[in-house]
C-alpha cells in the first residue's frame, strides 16, 4: 500500500473531501543522570487521513499505510453527526533531500558544574535529557494540495534538586534551543527555581509592582492563548483595551515551518496591537464557520490527532522595549517572579487567575532577598491592562506550543 493507493481509496469513499498526511521522523536522544547514561535512537512513521463520508467527518491514523487502509472502514462505520467540510487549500511544494540527524552533545557534566556554580553549591543537577531530531511531513488533499516540509528540533528537560537542612526542592525545566546550547541560562533558571523556595521568607508585601521572568511571562501568555482562538471572547474582553498600550502579541511560525498541519502557508498574525485585540487565529474548520480564511493555524501535535486550531509561535512584542535593568530600577516596591511553583491557573470565562511563584523582593530598584513562595491572584483583565512595559530579553519556551516572552513589568498586583 502506498500513499497513492491510499489517495485512491479515499477518493472512492468521498471523491472531493479528503486529506492524507504522512510524517516520518528520526530523533537521537541522550538521557543522563548520575546513575545512568542512555542513548536512544527513534524512527517514527505516521499516517493519518481525514475525510467526509456520509456528510460526517472521519479520522484515522496508523503507523503504516496498510494499517491506515484497515482503519478507514472502521472509522467510517461509526455514527458521527454531520458537519460541513472545509474549503481545502491548493498548493504544491517539494522538499530537498534530507540529512541524517546528529546525536545531541553530552552536556550533563557541563550543566552540572554550571548549576553548582549558579546555586553556590546548593543545587545539584539530577538529570538531563537532550533530544535532537528531524521530521518530514507531506500533506495531500482531494483539491490537489501536495506540500512537503521538514522541521528540526533541539530540546530537552533538566531536573535539579536543591537541599538545605530539613528542606528540599526538586524542579523540572523543559527547554528548547533554537541556535545552540545555552547552558548558562538554563543553569541559572534551574538554580533559581530550586533554591529560592528554600528560603524562610514569605512575601514581605501584600501589593506592589510585579516583574515576571520570561518563563513566567510565557506561561501567562500560553494561558491566555484561548482568547485568540474563540469565536466569542469572554464578556469581560474590551477589544480596544485588552492589555496595556505597551503590549503587542503576535503569532508567527514562518521561521519554523512553511505550512501548518493542513498545508496552509504560515504567516505572521498580529493579535494584540498596542493593547487592542486586533486579530484571531483560524484553521480550516474555524475559518469555514466564521466565513473567513485560515490563518495557517491548524496544528498537528501528533499524527495521531486531527489538526486542531491552536497557536504555533505566540509571543509578546513591544514597539519600544525597555532594558531589564531599567525595568528593575523602576520597581519601588514589588516582587520579581523567577519561577512558578505550581501550574498557572487561569479561568478566562470567570476572569480570574492565580499564580504561585518563587522569586525576589525588590525595594527602590534593588533586590532585597529571596521570597520562598508568594501567590498573586485577581482578574485577568486587570493583570493584562496593568502590563506597563516589556523588556528586550525575549525567550521562547515549549508550552506545548512555543510561547515567547521577555521580562514583563506589571505596575500593580496583590500578593499573599
Amino acid at each position: 500500500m502506498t500513499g497513492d493507493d491510499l489517495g485512491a481509496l479515499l477518493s472512492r469513499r468521498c471523491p472531493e473531501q479528503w486529506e492524507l498526511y504522512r510524517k516520518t521522523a528520526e530523533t537521537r536522544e541522550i538521557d543522563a543522570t548520575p546513575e545512568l547514561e542512555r542513548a536512544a535512537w527513534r524512527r517514527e512513521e505516521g499516517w493519518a487521513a481525514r475525510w467526509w463520508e456520509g456528510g460526517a467527518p472521519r479520522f484515522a491514523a496508523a503507523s503504516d499505510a496498510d494499517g491506515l487502509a484497515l482503519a478507514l472502514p472502521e472509522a467510517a462505520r461509526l455514527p458521527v453527526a454531520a458537519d460541513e467540510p472545509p474549503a481545502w487549500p491548493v498548493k504544491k511544494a517539494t522538499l530537498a533531500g534530507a540529512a541524517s540527524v546528529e546525536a545531541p552533545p553530552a552536556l550533563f557534566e557541563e550543566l552540572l558544574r554550571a548549576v553548582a556554580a549558579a546555586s553556590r553549591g546548593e543545587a545539584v543537577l539530577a538529570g538531563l535529557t537532550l533530544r535532537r531530531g528531524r521530521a518530514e511531513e507531506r500533506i495531500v488533499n482531494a483539491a490537489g494540495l501536495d506540500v512537503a516540509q521538514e522541521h528540526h528540533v533541539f530540546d530537552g528537560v533538566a531536573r535539579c534538586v536543591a537541599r538545605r537542612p530539613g528542606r528540599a526542592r526538586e524542579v523540572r525545566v523543559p527547554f528548547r534551543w533554537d541556535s545552540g546550547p545555552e547552558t548558562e541560562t538554563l543553569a541559572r533558571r534551574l538554580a533559581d527555581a530550586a533554591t529560592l523556595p528554600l528560603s524562610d521568607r514569605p512575601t514581605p508585601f501584600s501589593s506592589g509592582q510585579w516583574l515576571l521572568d520570561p518563563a513566567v511571562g510565557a506561561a501567562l501568555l500560553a494561558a491566555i492563548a484561548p482568547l485568540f482562538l474563540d469565536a466569542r471572547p469572554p464578556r469581560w474582553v474590551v477589544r480596544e483595551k485588552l492589555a496595556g498600550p505597551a503590549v503587542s502579541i503576535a503569532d508567527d511560525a514562518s521561521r519554523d515551518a512553511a505550512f501548518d498541519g493542513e498545508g496552509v502557508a504560515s504567516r505572521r498574525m498580529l493579535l494584540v496591537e498596542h493593547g487592542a485585540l486586533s486579530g484571531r487565529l483560524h484553521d480550516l474548520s474555524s475559518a469555514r464557520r466564521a466565513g473567513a480564511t485560515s490563518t495557517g493555524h491548524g496544528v498537528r501535535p501528533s499524527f495521531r490527532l486531527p489538526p486542531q486550531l491552536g497557536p504555533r509561535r505566540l509571543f509578546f512584542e513591544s514597539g519600544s522595549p525597555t532594558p531589564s535593568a531599567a525595568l528593575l530600577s523602576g520597581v519601588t516596591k514589588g516582587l520579581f517572579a523567577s519561577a512558578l511553583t505550581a501550574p498557572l491557573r487561569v479561568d478566562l470565562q470567570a476572569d480570574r487567575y492565580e499564580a504561585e511563584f518563587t522569586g525576589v523582593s525588590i525595594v527602590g530598584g534593588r533586590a532585597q532577598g529571596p521570597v520562598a513562595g508568594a501567590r498573586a491572584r485577581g482578574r485577568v483583565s486587570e493583570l493584562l491592562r496593568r502590563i506597563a512595559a516589556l523588556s528586550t530579553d525575549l525567550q521562547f519556551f515549549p508550552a506545548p506550543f512555543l510561547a515567547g516572552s521577555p521580562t514583563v513589568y506589571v505596575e500593580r498586583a496583590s500578593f499573599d
Partner: protein
Amino acid sequence: MNWDDDSILRWLEPFGGREGDLVEVFGEALTETCLEWRDGEIREARVRREQGTSARWRRGRSEQFASVAGADEAAVREAVRALRASAGREPLPIRSARGAPAAETEVGFPAAERTARRLAAILARHAPRHVFTLRLRQTERRVVAAGRPASTATRRLLSLEGRFTAASRAGDEQRLFAFHAPMSDEALEELKTALADAAAPRDRAVPVPAGEADAILAGGCAAVLFHEILGHPLEADAGVSPLRALPEARVAVADLEVIDDARRLDLFGGYERDDEGTAPRPVKLVASGLVGSQLTDRAHAAAAGSTGHGRRSGPAEPPLPRGANVVVSGGATDPEEMLRRLGNGIWIDEFLGGSVEIASGSFRLRFPRARRVRRGRFADELGPGVLAGELLPTLEAVEPALGREVRAYRGLGWCARAGQVVPVGGAAPDLMIRRLGVRPEL
C-alpha cells in the same frame, strides 16, 4: 505479533554475556477508538492502529535504546540492527522478512459500535448535555528477552472523561466526570451508576474555607492520595524522598496497609505481565504502619528480582519503575461512625488529579467539590479546592478508623511521569486524616 522468538534471541546474542546485562525486544500492537461526544451526538470519531518495536541493551550505567514503527519481523530486525550499530556490535545482515506473515489483528476496537450505542442511552438518561471523550483501547504487548521466557499481554481499557450540565438546587451547573475501567459489560453498568450519582441534584456550593481541616476521603478516592504520597516516592528511580530516609520506619498507624497490586485486573492499572515480561507481585508500600518496599523494574531490582513494575507508555519509550494499582486495606468502621468521629471537618469523595514533589514530599490534590461536616452531620456543599500537605505529617495524621468497604476509585486513570503516561488504578476504604491544608481553587 507473529515473531520467531528463536531468531530474535540469536540476533540479541552479541549483547549477552555479563551478569546483570539486560537485553530485550519489545513490541506493541495498539488499536484505539476515540469518540468525541457532545449533547448526545458523536461529533468526531478517530480510529488508530499503531504498531511499534524497540530494542534495549543495558550494561551497568549505560543503556542503548532503539525504536521503530511497525511490529513485524522487519521492524524487529531494524530495531536490533540500530541497537547493534549504536553499541558497536557486528551489524545484523539486512534480509527481507521471512516466515509466516504477521497475523492481522481484528480491525478497530471490536466493541466500539456496541459501546457507543449503550453509552448513548446512558448519557441520554443521566447527562443529556455534555462534552465527553470516550476512549476504547486495546493493546497487545510482547517481550522477548535473553534468558527469560517470551511473554505476551493483552489489555482492553475504557476511559470516559469530560463534563456535563447537571441540575443543582440553584440552577444548572457544569460538573466534571471521569471514569476509567477495564473494558467489560460490567464496566458499562458501573459507569451508568457512577454517572447517575454524579448527576444527582446538589445544593449551591459555598467556597471552601482556607486553613487546616480534618477530612474524610470517601468513595475510594483515598487511593489518589496514596498513589501520590506512597506510589511515586517508592518507585525505585524516584531519587531521595522523605520515605527513602526511613526504611521500615513507623510512619502511620498500625492499621494502615497499602499495597501496589498490578494483578488486580479489575482495576485500570492491572496487567498479567509488565512491559519487561515479568509477572507482577504485590508490593507492600506501608505494612502495619511501617514503610514498605520499592516498586522495581529489572534495572532497579534487588536480589529478589523485579517486582513486575517495569512499565512504558509505548514502544518508543524505555521502561521505568512505575506504580500500577494502589490498594488500601479496609477496617471495621462504618460511614456513620466515621462521620461521628470526624465531628467537624470536610468530606471529599472525588479528586480531579494530584501531584507530588518527591524531594520535599509536598503534595497537592484538586477536588471539584466537598461537603462540610458539622457535629458529625453533613452540612453545606463546598466548591472546588485543593488539599495540600507534606508526606510524612499526612501519613502520621491518618486515623486508625478505616472504613469497612474497599471501593475501586474509577476517577484515577492516567498517570504522567517523565513524559510517559500509563494507566493506573486504585481502591480504598473511607479514611480520616487530621489537619490537612485546604484552600479554595479558582
